[in-house]
């Protein structure tokens, strides 16, 4: 999602080309050496760093720089080199052709690492997408994915997951997502067989996105529930997963779970990913309304979101008041926005909640009211409003939305006195669940604190470590036993 936001075009300052390009090239070379050491030492960490550094360089990428880098990293004339150069704009390449020959002879590289080759694909692909050359990007990404299927190295996984992402993005930008679904499924299968968890995570999200793009909620849920799950490797991917999960659950009316996923996704998302957070908030607001909650005003006042959330703010207002007419007019007023957000069907579902809120307000304000007045207050426009009101009230009573009884003979609704809640166990139970939540949160936080291995005990031998772990385990067991004893 950070990538999505970063995609804003920046006008490249033309006069600084001469000064920046050598330094960009140098940066790229540094990154390449980082990848090399990472690949030889089998340290995924370094490759992750390389990718992060590349993202910082993204806006400075130029065709010239890229072709120079390709000449540096890959053997000119070799098959991947020829293919990648063909994606770059022709005229720029020609300029460079003459002086690159010399640089290549200085750094002869006979067998480029697969990591480096994949990295070159990634660079070219990012460049093409940024230049809005989507058809070339599609060709390039398809070629890279075909190449990736034959590379089975754990150090490539990080780069591969990035490539998958851009592969899907380039097809999405041209509106051909359905084409690559089979391919993504095959890739997901391969990643699972290779225990490439990051790849699985990324591909699962891409598949979910692919299905949801066409509203195929059924297929998405079937895939999601059957795909292997493990601890998340990347925060971004996890956020996306939560968002898709929230959407699926909303459609399938599991609002409580949906709310949890959507709110978590909105909170975990990086601050820069504004568009993603706005989307999460929109869905979360609707789900909370469907649950009968009214989101606080601060939700709509979040920085940078006021305008995007305005239609939803007015909608919330209509639901809060319980006014069907106002609700209808808001839904009509913003119908284009709601249908472009694809929340239109959810808003249709909300009508029922508007009636409920209105009914609850009536039930609180009156101890006894005739059904004809209820119908008038709810503004039910139907052939037989009193009978409608009667059955609606009856259902609300059964669902526990209001506490009242009906008197059919006299045609009125009698609200029950609300009992003193503090005479029951209710407050104590609520208090206990909150304390338990806080304590649990603290424990989780302690557990989540991670330390890099060997940072403070460099010289600890394997034997000593085993001894220490054993001691720790015994201690833990001891504590656990002590806990049991107390009961």
């Amino acid at each position: 999602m950070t990538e999505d936001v970063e995609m804003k075009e920046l006008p490249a300052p033309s006069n600084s080309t001469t000064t920046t390009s050598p330094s960009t090239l140098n940066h790229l070379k540094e990154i390449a050496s980082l990848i090399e050491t990472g690949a030889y030492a089998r340290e995924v960490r370094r490759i992750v760093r390389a990718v992060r550094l590349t993202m910082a360089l993204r806006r400075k990428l130029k065709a010239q720089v890229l072709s120079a880098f390709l000449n540096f990293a890959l053997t000119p004339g070799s098959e991947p080199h020829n293919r990648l150069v063909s994606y770059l704009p022709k005229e720029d390449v020609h300029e460079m052709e003459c002086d690159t020959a010399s640089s290549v002879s200085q750094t002869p590289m006979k067998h480029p690492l697969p990591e480096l080759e994949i990295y070159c694909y990634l660079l070219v692909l990012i460049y093409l997408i940024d230049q809005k050359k989507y058809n070339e990007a599609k060709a390039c990404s398809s070629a890279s994915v075909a190449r990736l299927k034959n590379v089975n190295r754990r150090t490539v996984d990080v780069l591969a997951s990035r490539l998958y992402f851009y592969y899907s993005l380039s097809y999405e930008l041209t509106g051909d997502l359905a084409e690559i679904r089979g391919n993504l499924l095959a890739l997901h299968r391969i990643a699972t067989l290779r225990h490439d968890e990051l790849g699985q995570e990324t591909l699962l999200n891409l598949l979910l996105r692919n299905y949801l793009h066409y509203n195929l909620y059924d297929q998405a849920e079937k895939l999601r529930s059957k795909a292997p799950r493990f601890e998340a490797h990347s925060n971004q991917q996890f956020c996306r997963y939560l968002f898709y999960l929230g959407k699926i659950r909303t459609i399938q009316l599991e609002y409580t779970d949906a709310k949890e996923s959507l709110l978590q996704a909105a909170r975990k998302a990086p601050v820069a990913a504004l568009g993603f957070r706005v989307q999460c908030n929109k869905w979360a607001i609707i789900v909370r309304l469907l649950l009968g909650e009214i989101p606080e005003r601060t939700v709509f006042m979040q920085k940078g979101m006021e305008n995007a959330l305005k239609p939803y703010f007015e909608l919330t207002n209509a639901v809060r008041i319980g006014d069907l007419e106002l609700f209808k007019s808001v839904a009509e007023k913003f119908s284009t926005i709601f249908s472009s957000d694809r929340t239109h069907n959810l808003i249709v579902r909300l009508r029922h909640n508007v009636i409920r809120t209105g009914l609850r307000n009536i039930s609180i304000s009156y101890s006894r009211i005739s059904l004809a007045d209820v119908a008038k207050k709810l503004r039910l426009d139907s052939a037989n409003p009193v009978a409608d009101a009667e059955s609606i009230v009856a259902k609300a009573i059964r669902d526990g939305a209001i506490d009242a009884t009906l008197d059919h003979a006299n045609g009125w609704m009698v609200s029950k006195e609300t009992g003193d809640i503090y005479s029951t166990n209710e407050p104590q139970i609520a208090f206990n669940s909150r304390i338990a939540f806080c304590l649990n949160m603290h424990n989780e936080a302690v557990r989540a604190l991670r330390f890099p291995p060997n940072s403070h005990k460099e010289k600890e031998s394997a034997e000593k470590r085993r001894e220490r772990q054993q001691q720790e385990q015994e201690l833990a067991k001891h504590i656990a036993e002590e806990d049991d004893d107390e009961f």
Partner: protein
Amino acid sequence: MDHKLTEVSQLFERFKAAGMREDVDTCSDLLSKLKVMLTGFRSLPPLFEDTPNAVHELTLARDIYEHAVLLSVKIGDQDAFERDFFQLKPYYTDASSRLPPSSQEYMILGLNLLRLLVQNRIAEFHTELELLSPAALENPCIKHAVELEQSFMEGAYNRVLSAKQTVPYKTYDYFMDLLAKTVRDEIAGCSEKAYDYLSISDASRMLLFSSDDELFQYIKEEHPEWEIKNGLVIFQKAKESAPCKEIPSLQLINQTLSYARELERIV
């Protein structure tokens, strides 16, 4: 036209003729034969091979499955309906680019929505709804089902029942009758909670019975806990949650101890 295709279309004509004669048994026999024969065509889902007769075969197969769905409604077999519908669905979604749209499409989609409603599979109902375009939602068949669901969720049951008069097709009657039964159970469940008592005449009118005897029969079968006294139906009230008289000491002690232990761990 190749020989297999003619054979299938001839058989299909016989099937249609049997359908006109309301000869359900012959229809079912012919249908299973037709389905077996359809497996011989390579242009149908899931293969979708581009054979010379592809469009023709696809249209024929779609026609056959449409009739199969309608037949299952006629004999009132909901499982068969579900099976046939799922076989038909790829022709509407995946093959839509190669075929001219079917005139029956929305009618059958609406039927399916109604079936999900009757079986109270609301989640699937909404999943299906998401697949429809805004234009499709305006279609009377789909709109009918959507409005039914809304009235059903709100509790406006008499609106659900009056919708029976406005069904777009005669085939909808089967599911509408089933829906009426579901609605009756819902009304019974709601009345039980909402009223202290109802007069017998009111109760039988609300539960859509034509005579009091039917009502008594229904109460005996479905709600034996309701009491009939002095011309009134008296519903048994669930006991109110009594205010807590004594302090749940053991539970409190346990909780407090666990707080103390957790706090100790923090400090």
